[in-house]
């Protein structure tokens, strides 16, 4: 048996590659970027004008397509949306893949298009992979609302954003300031040094701290737990060793806050060093009850689904088209206005403490 033969076609292929590359006539990334910048911007908003006074249609079929089914967060969000659909006489349902992989949602979108749903409410696993299928859905007259995780802007009419970076950053400082009496050294336990979300929030925290009411508060350190439980735990330990007189810690990541809480609850600092940030009630319930954490925050996923449901109904009824400045009513949540790029902001995050934490299960 010769071992030489395998390389012959390989060499041929390699030669072919070099040849193609050498010719240089191909399509490169810069070509595509030039094409896209010269082409007129595609708009998802339909040509039909909005009629703000149109009543919500009855019997609207609204499908919720989360990143993943059987995920407690999305179950609550989608139940909120289905409940909203009941309120306005529509019919909501949740469908979706059991794995959160990038493209598993596409066949669901195609199916929903076949079922002639009135609206699809989607949290995209991959902002781009779902766009071609969503465009087909929109071409078939289906309204598309993204929630939680946005798609590329030409793949949906409206994005319901759970919280603005500014709100999250500022309210976390406010929350901690109340707990420590606007006085003392504070630290931040973040995810990774280059985590886009966290860094934006931290910028807003720093900006908030410049206000006069925080003049007695000092941000001494931003530590990074890399969203790793063990690392976050040791970083918390390290913070308290370097700054034994620390008054409070803000951890704007669910992994970080849980690890920090675990460290604090078994340390003499329990209840003395205040901890707040972003977390989920199920994860932190025990620490709220044992006094390690006074209060933390997160948006309410049920409200997120509820608002997305109303936005979908408003689109399907012709009240809005997704253009900036249009207004619609979202049941118990009140009035909303569509912002730039078709975004609707849910509002201020919900604060969880020992009085209300048992009302939430996610």
């Amino acid at each position, binding site marked *: 048996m010769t071992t030489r033969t395998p390389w012959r076609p*390989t060499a041929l292929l390699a030669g072919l590659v070099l040849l193609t590359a050498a010719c240089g006539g191909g399509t490169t990334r810069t070509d595509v970027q030039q094409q896209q910048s010269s082409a007129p911007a595609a708009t998802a908003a339909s040509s039909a004008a909005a009629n703000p006074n149109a009543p919500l249609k009855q019997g609207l079929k609204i499908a919720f397509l989360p990143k993943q*089914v059987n995920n407690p967060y999305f179950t609550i969000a989608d139940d909120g949306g289905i409940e909203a659909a009941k309120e306005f006489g529509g019919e909501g349902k949740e469908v979706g893949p059991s794995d959160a992989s990038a493209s598993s949602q596409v066949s669901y979108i195609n199916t929903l*298009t076949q079922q002639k749903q009135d609206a699809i409410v989607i949290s995209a696993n991959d902002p781009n992979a779902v766009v071609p299928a969503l465009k087909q859905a929109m071409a078939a007259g289906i309204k598309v609302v993204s929630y939680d995780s946005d798609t590329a802007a030409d793949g949906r009419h409206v994005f319901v954003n759970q919280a603005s970076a500014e709100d999250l950053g500022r309210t976390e400082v406010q929350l901690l300031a109340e707990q420590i009496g606007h006085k003392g050294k504070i630290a931040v336990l973040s995810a990774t040094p280059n985590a886009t979300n966290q860094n934006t929030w931290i910028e807003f925290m720093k900006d908030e701290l410049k206000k006069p009411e925080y003049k007695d508060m000092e941000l001494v350190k931003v530590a990074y737990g890399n969203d790793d439980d063990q690392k976050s735990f040791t970083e918390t330990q390290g913070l308290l060793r370097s700054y034994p007189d620390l008054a409070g810690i803000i951890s704007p990541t669910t992994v970080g806050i849980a690890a920090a809480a675990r460290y604090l609850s078994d340390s003499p600092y329990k209840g003395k060093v205040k901890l707040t940030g972003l977390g989920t009630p199920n994860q932190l319930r025990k620490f709220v009850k044992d006094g390690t954490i006074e209060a933390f925050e997160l948006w309410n996923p049920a409200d997120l689904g509820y608002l997305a449901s109303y936005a979908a109904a408003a689109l399907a009824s012709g009240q809005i088209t997704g253009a900036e400045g249009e207004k619609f009513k979202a049941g118990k949540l009140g009035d909303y206005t569509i912002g730039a790029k078709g975004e609707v902001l849910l509002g201020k995050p919900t604060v969880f403490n020992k009085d209300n934490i048992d009302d939430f299960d996610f």
Partner: protein
Amino acid sequence: MTTDLSRPAERDLTRLARRWEGLILVLLVGVAGWAALGVDGFANTSNVSFLLLDTTEIALMALTMTLVIVAAEIDLSVASTLGLSCAVLGWLWNAGLPIEAIMPICLLVGAVCGAFNGLLVTRLGLPSLAVTIGTFALFRGLAYVMLGDQAVADLPPAYTSLATSSIGPVPLMTVLVAVLAAVAAVVLHATGLGRSIFALGSNEEAAYFSGIRVKRIKFWLFVASGVMASLASLVYTFRYASARADNGVGLELAVVAAVLLGGVSIFGGRGTLPGVLMAVLLLGVVRNALILADVANEVLNFVTGLLLVASVLAPNLGAIRRRRTSPPLEGKSVS
């Protein structure tokens, strides 16, 4: 039947194989018929296009997987090869290479992945199950190293629309599958090479002593499997307009499921390509119809799993019964 039926065991097997494919065909027609009548939105051209398009990557990889499994080997690294090829595509695209040069490089990556599997299996004599479970993690890991969690999405629209385009109701990619399926079917069922694959799958030693170049054939089967996985990666990337390291996670199971359901014996030496293609379609139809009928995803996985277990169990029932009633036979009964 005009086949030589001198050996009763073989006659049994042939008949079972025929019957099995007949069964799959009946199931396929039955399920499609039920869906057409009972499920809203199933029987129209756009849904059929979706359905066909959704099975493209699985069908492509199932073609070579059939040959590999008939040769009594397995390649569990196909979906990871697909992922690695996608990552290479994204990485080179970001680096500014023209897409026309990237595509052959991707195929080359697939060939190298396959050759790596093939060398470990044929030259070092390692079991392909163990080797490809290893490379399953290796290739996927490499994909993440290259691309991390970023998605490369600014791919040329000319290619992305080509991947989703249709000729009438038939997606262009289905035409590609059909052409390659025809080639694979001819190779497997109408050439000396195909017969050699069957021979080495049913008894490697006998095949070796009758002059078949066992190792060389196996090596090239793994290379073919790798190339096909990277071809599937190109379809996948353009179809979803997104090159990511996690593209196609879990597809290897769908591919193996389709091949086994199609009547290919997991012990090698038995199976037909038409059977596998029908099984790919059957799984696609079941999935599509159940999703349209709002059946929950868990139930869907359950049904697919049930079909798979049935497909492994049914052809072996006879053998299991014989093994229980008679003393164990010498030779290859369990591999």
